[in-house]
């Protein structure tokens, strides 16, 4: 592991009962980069985020964050580590009983002894960074989907974390909001010098902003590379995924016996 590496994933395996979700995953995530993790639904992307955050423990292998093996930490040490992480959930997961301001101030009030006047300034700065300073008094139910995710982004950078994980940040957004969120991820990563992991299906938007891409299929890393390498890749899986082709290594048809056999036509067409 180099000094620039923030996260090291080594031979990571995870299973629910006997069903293998991740098998032998190796990854290296440097500081200050935006890394995308792509793959079909149920391929194990979100599980990987949960393993990195220590929400679940691997069956074997490890995730090392800032030099510490995450699953070996006790609860207090894990919570201490999580103060260095932020996470943007798919639909923001804002606290619905708190205003936008109080949502962003939440972690500051929970983990610091800063005076309220300083918290106010910091919250307004975070909200300004996502363009929603003027919305600080609104309640979450008064926000659009894109605005809610921007507030959640401001909340996740409240304590200037070393890492932010984004779980499907582009889902259900209109093109303008989608572009805004994409640019914010890139800008904030560069401005704060943190690392961003983006779990996404949105190939075109994410390839514009990320530095490196991992493709996960059936629990293993099927391909990886820079956006340029990925775009030019002739690997069948990558090609199918990037171009959204209907059939390929990921088949259109669910495995079944022959069509003729299902329709009782075998022998009659010979």
């Amino acid at each position, binding site marked *: 592991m180099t000094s620039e590496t923030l996260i090291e994933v080594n031979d990571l395996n995870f299973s629910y009962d006997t069903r293998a979700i991740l098998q032998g995953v190796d990854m290296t995530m440097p500081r200050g980069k935006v890394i995308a993790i792509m793959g079909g639904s149920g391929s194990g992307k979100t599980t990987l985020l949960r393993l990195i*955050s220590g*929400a679940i423990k691997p069956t074997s292998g490890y995730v090392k964050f800032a030099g510490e093996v995450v699953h070996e930490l006790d609860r207090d040490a894990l*919570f*201490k580590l*999580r*103060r260095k*992480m*932020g*996470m943007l*959930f*798919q*639909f923001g*997961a*804002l*606290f*619905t009983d708190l205003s936008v301001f109080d949502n962003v101030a*939440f*972690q500051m009030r*929970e*983990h610091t002894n800063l005076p309220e006047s300083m918290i106010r300034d910091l919250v307004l700065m975070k909200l300004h960074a996502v363009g929603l300073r003027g919305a600080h008094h609104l309640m979450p139910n008064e926000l659009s989907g894109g605005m809610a995710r921007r507030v959640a982004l401001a909340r996740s950078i409240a304590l200037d974390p070393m890492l932010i994980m984004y779980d499907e940040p582009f889902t259900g957004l209109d093109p303008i909001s989608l572009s805004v969120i994409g640019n914010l991820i890139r800008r904030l990563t560069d401005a704060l010098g943190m690392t961003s992991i983006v779990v996404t299906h949105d190939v075109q938007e994410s390839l514009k902003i990320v530095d490196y891409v991992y493709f996960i299929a059936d629990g293993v890393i099927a391909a990886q590379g820079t956006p340029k390498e990925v775009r030019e890749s002739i690997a069948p899986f990558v090609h199918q995924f990037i171009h959204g082709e209907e059939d390929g290594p990921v088949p259109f048809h669910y495995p079944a016996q022959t069509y003729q056999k299902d329709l009782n036509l075998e022998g009659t067409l010979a």
Partner: protein
Amino acid sequence: MPRRIVSGIQNIGHRVIEGVWRLGVASRFFILVLLKSGTSLRRFNLVVRELYFTGVLSLIIIVVSGLFVGMVLGLQGYETLQKYGSESAVGTLVALSLVRELGPVVAALLFASRAGSAITAEIGLMKATEQLAAMGMMAVDPIARVVAPRFWAGVISMPLLAAMFSVMGVFGGYLVTVVFIGVDEGSYWSQMQSAVDFRFDILNGFIKSCFFGVAVTAIAVFEGYDAPPTAEGVSGATTRTVVTSSLVILGLDFILTAFMFRGVS
């Protein structure tokens, strides 16, 4: 036929095992809530905020129900007692019925329906919308920050609401018997004063309502926290809170009454 019987027995076995397992999980959760209550006690404003939602917002239903229950008690009591020329004892009947039984029990049933269901739905929805997971990711323990303050607010609210219920009931009985029917006001209050014992009646009623508060709120927070994160899961959990709490209140009431009033004339 024997196959169906075997399968029926298996089904009962599964349900029993599941029930015992769930009881174990609930007990473990309850202990966790108690252990993680330090934050609630240190930052009591968290509890005060929940006191408003569970206690203050339940006041209307408690006050109105207490008033009507007291009025009905007064009316029924008067109808029966006047046959024996003892209508002046109606105040005693109203007060003892309310303070010993109806106050704690009916207030707890109303509390389970009004506040218990709201607590379950709120925590369940917080889980379904990943708010609890988000809190955990921010290194804030959801049991300490969300569950414990609601639990303690419920425990504090319940005896106060039961007391309010009894007070309103006594007033309702007064309205019907003294103001409308014309029973002597002095007998209504003085017989009540001499017959109601602080230790046996008021204190025991208070202890009952404390037990009910712990039971209802513990069930409500557990069902919310344990709810499957779907619309159907949250609605099922809310229903379970009301049904389980009601049964537990009635069962506990019998046990507590048996202990408290055994041998008391």
